[in-house]
């Protein structure tokens, strides 16, 4: 039942990898499911002291997961969302779904605190769990938004690269980059080519921006395909528009 130790050890051994984020998230989801089931079953058996113990354990585990996995991932989420957007997207969506369910569970449990004769400390623990879940939800929403941005950047760059090759624009584009600020709408595109006249660089940027806008308009015209969704999120989404300008760097 108590997976606190395994969460800690996994988080400490490799919080820098997407694989460890995925396995820690799965462990937390399993833990939350089992913990809420155990609370329900203890309630049916009127084991009130056991419920209070489980709630405290849930608070500690949620806190550990939030600090050692969710917050630490902030340092790496850009790289994951750029390189493995679909994979990280699925982990995040599953996590959000579990957080939402757990929040509802504790909200309902708090409403019934008189039935279970919870003491003051346990009532506060439930409130703390809900506050932690809210903070976690907010942080993960940012990760989800960045993941959508990463997917849009990848598709936009691929589209742009194809058009640049077809239209025989005087440069070739090799790679892309984007800011981790959601509302920064510039797609940075790099080229290995040299351009002798600096003023021409701005003209090429304008041309690439026009092509990006053309691509965005085409995306809007395309029929929206319903892919399999996880918790309402579709990480194959093609209808998200994050970029309206290209910068050649």
């Amino acid at each position, binding site marked *: 039942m108590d997976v606190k130790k395994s969460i800690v050890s996994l988080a400490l051994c490799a919080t820098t990898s997407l694989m460890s984020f995925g396995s820690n998230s799965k462990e937390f989801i399993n833990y939350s499911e089992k913990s809420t089931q155990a609370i329900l079953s203890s309630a049916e058996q009127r084991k009130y002291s056991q419920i209070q113990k489980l709630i405290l354990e849930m608070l500690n585990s949620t806190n550990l997961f939030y600090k050692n996995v969710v917050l630490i991932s902030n340092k790496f989420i850009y*790289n994951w969302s750029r390189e493995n957007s679909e994979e990280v997207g699925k982990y995040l969506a599953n996590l959000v779904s579990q957080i939402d369910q757990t929040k509802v569970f504790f909200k309902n449990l708090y409403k019934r605190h008189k039935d279970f004769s919870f003491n003051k400390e346990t009532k506060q623990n439930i409130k703390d769990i809900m506050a932690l879940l809210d903070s976690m939800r907010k942080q993960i929403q940012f990760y989800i938004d960045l993941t959508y941005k990463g997917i849009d950047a990848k598709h936009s760059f691929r589209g742009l690269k194809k058009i640049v090759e077809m239209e025989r624009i005087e440069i070739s584009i090799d790679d892309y*980059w984007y800011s981790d*600020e959601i509302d920064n709408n*510039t797609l*940075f595109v790099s*080229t290995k080519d040299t351009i002798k006249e*600096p003023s021409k660089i701005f003209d090429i940027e304008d041309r690439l921006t026009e092509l990006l806008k053309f691509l965005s308009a085409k995306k809007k015209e395309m029929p929206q395909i319903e892919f399999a969704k996880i918790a309402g999120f579709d990480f194959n989404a093609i209808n998200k528009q994050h970029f309206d300008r290209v*910068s*050649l*760097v």
Partner: protein
Amino acid sequence: MTEYRQLALGLNTFAYNLNSFDISQLGITENVSKRSIFNRLYYALYNRLIDELPDLQVSTTGDKHQQIEDRLRRNTHNDVCRKAYNLFRDLKTLRVWADYKPTMQDPSSNLTLLLQKTYEVINYDTIFPER
């Protein structure tokens, strides 16, 4: 030439020389060199822009960086201002990466191109349209 323009050109030259230099002699990595170039280019442009904004030169209130960006944005109908506005925002983004994001992936970039763009803009006679 004003001190602000001199500083802008000096910082741009520093960035150019760092990019041309054999950095192994300086004992720094390519990543650190790139971060330093982004940082210096941003401040080269910052100083060039503030040269035309005497009220901001002496101002002690507010975020000057944001105020410069706001003034550029209000003038993007002017082509020169639009180019300066875009470059200022791009260099700001790259500088934030350079100074505050050690774990975030390296922005793929052609530094020569970025140096050319900055050199072009800081050498415009006038950036802000006359008021």
